[in-house]
C-alpha cells in the first residue's frame, strides 16, 4: 500500500462507521412515539441497572478481594477493602511456584500458546472449508456439509474421553498437540464462514477472475480472503475463547502441571485450597482468576467492532 493511499483508507473507514451509526439511528424509532410515559423509560433503565449490578457483583468481588490476605478474604465483608492492602504481594505470587504444584505465569503462557495455535488453526481450516462449501459444488459436498453440521450435536464428553484413550496409544498424553490439534476442529467455524462467504464474496467476482486466467488458490488468497476479514475475526474470537475456556479436555489429557492451562491450574488450586489448610492458596485463586479474565475482557472491548454477532444468525432465514 502506498503512503498516499493510507489516509484515504482511514477516511473511508470513518465514513463507514458514521454511516453505520446513521443507519442504526434510522432503524430506531424514538421512544416517545410508542406513547411511553417517562416513568416507563426510567423504570426500564432501573431494571437494566439492576441486571448490570448482578453481572458486575462477581467482578467487583474478585477485584476487591485480590487486595486482601487469606484471613481477610474470609473475615471481612466481601465488598469492602480491608487493611493490609496486599494486592502486589498477591500478584507477585503469580510468578512463584507457591505450593509446588505449578506457577501461574507458566499456565498463562500455556493458555496463550494453546489459544493462539488452536484459534489460528481453527480459523484457517474453517476459512478454507467454508470457502470450499460456499463457492464450489461438487459431488458429495452437501452431504459432507451436513455431516460437519451434525457434529454440533455430539457431546464434547463423547469425543474427549475416547481422545484420551487413543492418545494413550499414540503418545499424545502430556503433549501440547493433544490439546491444540482437536481445538483446530471447529464445525461452528466452518458453518459461520460458509454463511459469511455466501453473502460477502460474490460468485461473479470469482468467475471474472477465472476468465482472466487466475488460479483457484490465487483467487482465494488475493480476492476472497480480504473480503472475508470480518467473518475471520468472529471465528478467531470464538475459537480463541473456546480454547481459553476449555476445561474438560486439558483436565483429562494433562497429568504434568507444567503443561496445564489456566482453567485446570485454577481448578487445582481451588481444590487444594480446600483440602490442604497450610498453604495460603485462596488469595492465589482470587488474583489468578482476576488476571485470567482481564485479557479476554480487554480483547472483547478492543475487537467489539469486528464482532459480527449477526453472523450467528445469518442463515437462519434460509
Amino acid at each position, binding site marked *: 500500500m502506498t503512503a498516499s493511499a493510507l489516509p484515504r483508507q482511514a477516511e473511508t473507514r470513518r465514513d463507514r462507521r458514521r454511516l453505520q451509526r446513521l443507519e442504526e439511528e434510522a432503524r430506531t424509532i424514538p421512544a416517545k412515539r410508542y406513547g411511553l410515559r417517562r416513568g416507563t*423509560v426510567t423504570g426500564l433503565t432501573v431494571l437494566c441497572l439492576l441486571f448490570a449490578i448482578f*453481572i458486575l457483583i462477581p467482578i467487583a468481588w474478585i477485584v476487591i478481594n485480590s487486595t486482601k490476605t487469606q484471613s481477610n478474604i474470609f473475615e471481612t465483608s466481601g465488598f469492602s477493602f480491608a487493611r493490609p492492602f496486599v494486592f502486589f504481594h498477591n500478584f507477585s505470587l503469580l510468578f512463584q511456584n507457591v505450593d509446588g504444584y505449578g506457577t501461574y505465569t507458566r499456565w498463562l503462557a500455556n493458555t496463550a500458546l494453546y489459544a493462539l495455535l488452536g484459534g489460528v488453526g481453527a480459523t484457517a481450516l474453517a476459512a478454507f472449508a467454508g470457502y470450499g462449501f460456499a463457492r*464450489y459444488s461438487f459431488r458429495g459436498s452437501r452431504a459432507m456439509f451436513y455431516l460437519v453440521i451434525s457434529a454440533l450435536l455430539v457431546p464434547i*464428553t463423547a*469425543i474427549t474421553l475416547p481422545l484420551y484413550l*487413543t492418545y494413550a496409544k499414540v503418545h499424545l498424553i502430556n503433549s501440547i498437540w493433544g490439546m491444540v490439534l482437536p481445538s483446530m476442529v471447529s464445525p461452528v467455524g466452518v458453518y459461520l464462514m460458509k454463511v459469511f462467504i455466501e453473502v460477502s464474496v460474490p460468485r461473479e467476482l470469482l468467475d471474472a477472475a477465472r476468465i482472466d486466467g487466475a488460479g483457484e488458490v490465487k483467487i482465494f488468497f488475493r480476492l476472497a480472503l480480504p473480503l472475508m476479514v470480518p467473518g475471520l475475526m468472529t471465528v478467531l474470537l470464538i475459537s480463541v475463547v473456546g480454547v481459553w475456556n476449555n476445561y474438560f479436555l486439558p483436565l483429562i489429557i494433562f497429568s504434568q502441571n507444567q503443561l496445564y492451562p489456566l482453567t485446570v491450574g485454577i481448578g487445582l488450586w481451588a481444590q487444594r485450597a480446600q483440602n490442604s489448610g497450610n498453604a495460603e492458596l485462596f488469595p492465589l485463586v482470587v488474583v489468578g482468576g482476576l488476571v485470567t479474565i482481564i485479557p479476554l475482557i480487554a480483547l472483547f472491548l478492543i475487537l467489539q467492532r469486528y464482532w459480527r454477532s449477526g453472523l450467528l444468525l445469518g442463515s437462519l432465514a434460509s
Partner: protein
Amino acid sequence: MSSIAMQPSRQADQLKVPRRSQPQRQQHRHDRRGIWFIVPFLVAFLMFMVAPLGYAIYTSLYTTKIIGGTVFSGAANYSQTLTDGNFWSGVVRVIIFGAIQIPLMLAIAFFFATVFDLGVAKFGRTFRTIFFIPFAVPAVVGAVMWAFLLEPQFGPFTHAANAIGIHNVDFFSSSLMLPSIIVIAIWEWTGYNMVILYTALRSVPRDVVEAAILDHASFWKIILRVKLPMVRPAIVLLVFLNSIGALQLFTEPLILQYFQPQAISVNYTPTLYIYNTAIGAGEYNLAAAAAVVLGAVIVVISVGSLVFRRRKGQLA
C-alpha cells in the same frame, strides 16, 4: 448462474468452437477443485471427531478385566449403564436444570434485547457491553467467584440473606445447589443470548413496527405480537444450542464440589458420571458406553425439540 460464468474461457475459444455443453463442463472442472479447500478440515475432522466417536462405540462393546484382559462383551456395558439409577438421576437432574434455566435465561435475554433494540432505556450501549462481559469469563473462574459469593459460612450472599431476615440459608445444601448452579449459568450466558437476540431484532424492518404504531398497538403488544414472532427462528436455535450445553453440565458442579464435597455426588450430572467412571474408577469401557448413551439422549432431545416445533408450525 451469471452470464459471465456461462462464457467459455479465451483458451477454449482459441482451441475449438465451443459446443453448448462446453461451459457446463468448464464449470464442473473448477468445481471439482473445490474439494481441496475442504480436505485439510476434513482430515482433522475425521481424526479428532469422527474417529474418537467411532472408537468410543468400539470400546463400549468390550470389557477389560484384570484377569483375562479385554474381551468382547456386546451390550453388557450398555445394559449396565441403562439400568444404573445413578446415571439416570444425573440425566433427570440436567433435564430439570435445562427446563428451568433455559426459559428463564431466554426470557431475560429477550426482554433486555427488546429494550435495547427499541432504545427505550438510557445508556443502552453501555449496558449491552456490561451484560456481555461474562462471556469472556472462563466457566472455571465464574464458578470459583460464585462459590466464594455463595459459601455458607462467610459468603457475602449468605450474610446478605441473614441481614434481611432469612437465617440459616445454605446455598450449597442439596435443595439449593441446583438453583445456585442455575443462577451461575444465567450469569454466564444471558449476555451472549441477549446479543444474538438483539441482532435478530435489529433485522426486523422498521416499517412493520411503524405500521403497528399507526394501528395504535400498545408498546407491550408490539413487543409480544410483532417483535417476538419475527425472531422465533433465532429463539428456536438458541433453545437448541442451550439444550445441548445444559445436558453436558460439568464445570460448574465440579468446581462447586471442591468447595462443598457433600452436596455434589460423583454422579451429579451425566458428564460427571462419565468423568468419574473413567478417570476416577478407571472403567473406560463403561464410561465409553455412558458417553454414547448421553450422546444419544442429547440427539433425541435436541432434534426432538426441533421436530416438535416444526410440527406445531412454529418454524418457518
